[in-house]
């Protein structure tokens, strides 16, 4: 199959991107400055991320659509206000996760942002569940641009006036340069920032404009170190079809009002696990010293019994040390529990720690 390119591919090339294949797309892993500088620039200034490979699924409908979606997602969608977003999951009956996603209620229905590697299958699953009652559009004509970091609000607001009035996890349509953009205040870095849905033919010029105002392009490499410092899950690593939201320590994302009556896919398993606890749970892990424990590193207790596995591990440039996330048996999930990580045949000490590794406050209450 031919590798797919986003509408910013030429711009990545002219900015000396190193490319990798990701979910069938040719995507920039880094630019000439490298992952650590790109990471730090995002934390101190403003980074631009091409996330156009992700799925933008528009589903059109009224209250009946809300009712149907409540049978699928563990969310209180009836009480979700227009232009408000929620983090959620598409699950199977065993609460195994097909995908994690952001769903936003828009005037015409819902906009769901899906992972690139999952979007086609998600579309199929949702089409089967919803039947042909609602118009669904996995929109390939729109690009998705994220801008993240403390200077982002000022930069973006100078191009799209009014985005500074958005609260975290809300969005709206804006007019800019004779086009309709859907902007949400959200992101995947632990920083204040925005995601902008824009038609493909306007994307390159828009990003050039952001660069002119002082933002810089950031690759997937720094996106990964940023999200890991922020303690955020990456599908295919922390989350997959064999993990549930409770095991992933994401019970906060399940609406409380939906737990008493269930009625969403996977609700029985979720309710059982909420009551009895899960046998394994996702935790933050800090190796001692500088050792990096990558994905699939085995975790042991001091009696040589394997108690878990790392799902993501790297060097955190802002933490200035190695960080990881993984699953451990629940009796080892308390903060400050001593564990051992087997790297290149040797066991190295590490500690279970609280997430995130790096924290800033998101913007709330601007209007």
């Amino acid at each position, binding site marked *: 199959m031919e590798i797919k390119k986003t509408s910013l591919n030429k711009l990545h090339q002219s900015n000396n991107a190193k490319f990798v294949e990701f979910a069938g797309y040719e995507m920039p892993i880094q630019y000439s400055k490298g992952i650590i500088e790109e990471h730090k620039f995002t934390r101190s200034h403003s980074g631009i991320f091409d996330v156009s490979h992700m799925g933008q699924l528009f589903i059109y409908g009224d209250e009946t659509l809300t009712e149907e979606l409540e049978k699928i997602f563990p969310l209180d969608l009836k009480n979700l206000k227009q232009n408000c977003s929620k983090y959620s999951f598409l699950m199977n009956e065993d609460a195994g996760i097909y995908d994690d996603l952001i769903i936003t209620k828009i005037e015409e229905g819902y906009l769901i942002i899906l992972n690139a590697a999952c979007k086609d299958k998600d579309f199929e699953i949702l089409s089967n569940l919803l039947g042909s009652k609602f118009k669904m559009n996995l929109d390939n004509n729109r690009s998705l641009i994220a801008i993240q970091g403390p200077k982002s609000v000022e930069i973006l607001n100078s191009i799209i006036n009014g985005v500074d009035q958005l609260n975290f996890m809300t969005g709206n349509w804006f007019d800019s340069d004779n086009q309709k953009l859907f902007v949400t205040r959200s992101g995947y870095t632990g920083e204040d920032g925005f995601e902008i849905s824009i038609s493909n033919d306007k994307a390159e010029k828009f990003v050039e404009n952001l660069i002119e105002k002082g933002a810089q392009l950031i690759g997937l490499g720094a996106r990964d170190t940023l999200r890991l410092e922020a303690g955020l899950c990456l599908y295919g690593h922390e989350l997959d079809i064999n993990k549930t939201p409770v095991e992933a320590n994401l019970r906060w994302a399940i609406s409380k009002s939906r737990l008493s009556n269930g009625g969403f896919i996977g609700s029985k398993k979720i309710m059982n696990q909420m009551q009895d606890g899960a046998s394994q749970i996702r935790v933050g892990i800090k190796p001692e010293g500088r050792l990096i424990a990558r994905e699939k590193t085995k975790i042991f207790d001091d009696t040589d019994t394997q108690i878990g596995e790392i799902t993501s591990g790297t060097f955190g440039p802002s933490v200035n040390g190695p960080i990881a996330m993984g699953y451990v048996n629940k009796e080892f999930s308390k903060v400050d529990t001593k564990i051992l990580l087997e790297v*290149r045949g040797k066991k190295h000490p590490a500690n279970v720690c609280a997430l995130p590794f790096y924290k800033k406050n998101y913007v709330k209450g601007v209007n």
Partner: protein
Amino acid sequence: MSEVKFSKEHEWITLEGDVATIGITKHATEMLGDIVFAELPEKGSNVEKDGTAGVVESTKAASDVYTPVSGEVVDTNQAIVDDPSKINEDPEGSAWFFKLKMKDQSEMDSLMNKEEYDKFAKESTS
């Protein structure tokens, strides 16, 4: 000091008397990206030509460091373990990895000179 020689695994080596100094090439660091961890062989241990003699990790991945010649490890560069970013800054100078007392200096003969290595590195990238 001898001419700098290079291996296909992207190490450089110089010889002074019977002691070889070994590090990784600038080209290698450019391929790896930001290096954030380095592990070196133990002093006093013996390493065999083309065997592993350390590890470097970038933000992206771990890579073995090989030794292009055999010998006994007589010194290691603790400065790059304490601050691995030095490897990106000066890979073919102050950020050497380890020194070996060589057993068989003829092992140097099969290694590449600078011109050969530059050509090899260019071809292996494209």
